[in-house]
């Protein structure tokens, strides 16, 4: 079981993405189709986790994927893996959207936000994605309650650290620190290296 989890988290199980991105950067549409197949599920997942509304999520995911094509010539492997680059873009876009649409609504739903820690309830048939999910879920459990809530609200709900502070009744500095030490603990548990 441990071994299976390890395989699921091993970046080498997505071997060709870096090379494919190089071809996409040269305008290769077939290569982009392969990149699409590798990243569309995670992209839509990130966007949907933040936005929740399926129609809006699909629209933003589509924008993100087109943006991946458009800006691929600027991607450089020194700044991180292609998958990280794409997911960072997806999260930023989703957060931008949620902030422009829901700025006021967010504050009115603190209780609802806290109740809605990620359920990961969307079923995917991909074994790899299920294993990744299990490992992240396991590692999230190693965080303190406050760390876990802070990180979860910021990432999956698109809250700023100020909103996190408000939602969890924490001083601003503490909210900032919890986001950092929570992520550090998560990094160590997942064995992430940059």
């Amino acid at each position: 079981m441990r071994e299976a989890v390890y395989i699921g988290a091993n970046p080498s199980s997505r071997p060709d993405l870096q090379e494919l991105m190089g071809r996409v950067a040269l305008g290769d549409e077939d290569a982009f189709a392969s990149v699409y197949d590798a990243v569309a599920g995670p992209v839509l997942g990130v966007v949907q986790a933040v936005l929740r509304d399926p129609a809006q999520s699909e629209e933003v995911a589509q924008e993100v994927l087109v943006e991946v094509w458009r800006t691929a010539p600027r991607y450089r492997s020194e700044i991180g893996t292609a998958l990280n680059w794409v997911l960072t873009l997806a999260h930023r876009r989703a957060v931008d959207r949620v902030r422009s649409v829901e700025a006021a609504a967010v504050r009115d739903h603190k209780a609802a936000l806290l109740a809605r820690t990620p359920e990961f309830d969307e079923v995917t048939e991909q074994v790899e994605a299920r294993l990744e999910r299990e490992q992240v879920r396991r590692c999230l459990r190693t965080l303190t309650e406050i760390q876990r809530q802070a990180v979860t609200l910021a990432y999956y709900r698109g809250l700023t650290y100020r909103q996190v502070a408000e939602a969890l009744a924490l001083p601003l500095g503490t909210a900032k620190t919890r986001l950092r030490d929570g992520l550090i603990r998560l990094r160590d548990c997942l064995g992430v290296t940059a």
Partner: protein
Amino acid sequence: MTTTADLHLMTGAYALHALSDEEHAAFERHLADCEACAQETAELSATAARLGLAATVTPSAALRGQVLRRISSVRQVPPGTTGTRPVRAGRRARLLSRWALAACLAAAATLGGTTVWQHQRAEDALRQARSARQGTAEIAAVLAAPDARTRTADLGDGATGSVVVSRERDRAVFVASGMARPAGGKVYQLWYDDDGTMRSAGFMDPGRTDQAVLLRGGVDGASGMGVTVEPAGGSAEPSSTPVALLGFPT
């Protein structure tokens, strides 16, 4: 006021996109000088991406068709050193910071470490331009353009002038900092330099010492720009020695 120690603690919030636009910009400026922060930021961003990966869903087949159809008509950006995104309202500060950072690095490289460009001043100027509503969206778009190039000149008496040119957008922005106000009844007039022939490109706001101005009209192959002092209302051609002359970076 944000201190450096505060900035160090922002790595997590930055990786989670949990900072305001202003804080995001301040943090990115800090990142340029802080290797330890850059390493931690890269790791925490990669960690955040794992949170995203865990949320993977199966997209509809329709989405694939739509995206693949769309990309066949979307032109890719030219290769470069900075990331880029289309300009949209509310995102300007962040775009500017990214651009300013790149401009700083470029300036440091070409001027042997003398970073002439001062992004803080550019941001101040942009903020003022925004409050004056002087075509700010277009100014921000030029500053953030993937092919934007900058050239800075010392105008004496502590004044600095920088020109930012985007050939792709065919526009140029002049950013002035600390320029003395023109004498009463005079204005600063901007010019495009068409290989020695000066073409009027509008005026600066006489009431401001720091400002970002969009040059009127397209670059259209001009090799540089100049600023002269002219009688109010402007002149058809320069009537005085330029206070600034800047060749466009190539």
